[in-house]
């Protein structure tokens, strides 16, 4: 009498059956969940990049209008930011180079604003934990 054996087989097939159904449901809900997170992260990432892009654009224009506006060192840093932004794979969140590029951008932005004595960060700017309520420039 192999009632035990057949019971084990059945259990396994029930497990698998449930697993498959769960997997199919998980694909749907996982995709939706991921999409929500992606929508938020994408907007915030884009906002930060665009912010740098805007600043760098204005600074570059300012340098062209008045080359003595900033020290050569800072001009070079601005140029580097410009390059980082141009090479940034904005539509590839999975690209591994992207987070290094973001770190470098943040650092350079800090260096530049410190040397220009500017406080340009916006409310909710990722790295402004120390002065969250501080606006202005």
């Amino acid at each position: 009498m192999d009632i035990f054996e057949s019971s084990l087989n059945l259990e396994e097939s029930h497990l698998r059956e449930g697993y498959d159904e769960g997997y199919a449901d998980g694909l749907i809900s996982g995709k939706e969940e991921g999409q929500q997170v992606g929508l938020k992260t994408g907007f915030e990432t884009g906002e930060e990049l665009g912010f740098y892009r805007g600043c760098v654009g204005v600074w570059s224009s300012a340098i062209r209008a008045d080359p003595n506006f900033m020290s050569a060192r800072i001009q070079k840093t601005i140029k580097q930011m410009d390059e980082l932004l141009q090479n940034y794979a904005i539509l590839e969140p999975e690209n591994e180079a992207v987070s290094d590029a973001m770190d470098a951008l943040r650092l350079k932005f800090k260096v530049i604003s410190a040397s220009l004595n500017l406080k340009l960060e916006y409310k909710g700017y990722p790295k402004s934990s120390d002065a969250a309520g501080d606006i202005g420039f």
Partner: protein
Amino acid sequence: MKIISFHIQKHGSIANDLYSNILESSSVDSDRRMNTVQVNDNFHESDADDLWYDDDSCEDSVEKSGKALDMDREWRRRHDQFHTLGYRDGLIAGKEAALQEGFNIGFKDSVLTGYNWGRVRGISSAMASLPSALKEKLVETEETRKRIQQLHESVQCISSTESLKLFYEDQRRKSLKQETAEPSSSETNQSSDAGVLENYQVQLQSILHESPLVEGHLKITP
């Protein structure tokens, strides 16, 4: 219930979608899930007692068929119990498999809008913070300089969280508009049709148009 409450606890609103998915699936299916719930709740108490019968009592045919029925029910319970276990594991694995894909889709849907909005922030605040002599070199007319300052002030008031909210609202409005296909009124009111964020973008664009010295048109490398 266990499956469902597990989801609600862990995954908030997504659970509602999933919940309705489950309810939508065939009635046989949902019946079985209901069974699963019961089984799961009293499984531990009843399992050991009910599962195997002693065979020493003498039985008539009625008892026999009753017993067969019990056996049937038992098989069913065990089926449901294992089905549930499998379902949970499968659900987690399925989610993990699809999360990244969903993330990428969402990310690509919003990153460029965020980028354009961020540029409004960057350009207006960097402009506003330039020394006035330099500002006058870059932007000829007093009026345009004023407009930049105003734009900067209103943009600076909007925190990152708020702009994200505005983005969501714009998205919703757009999808709603697609459904109803209502004719768009002209820009009489700032927040009426175009969306708040886009509106600032339009303002910036027109300012940049008047100030050709400011680098405004910047490409995005996809």
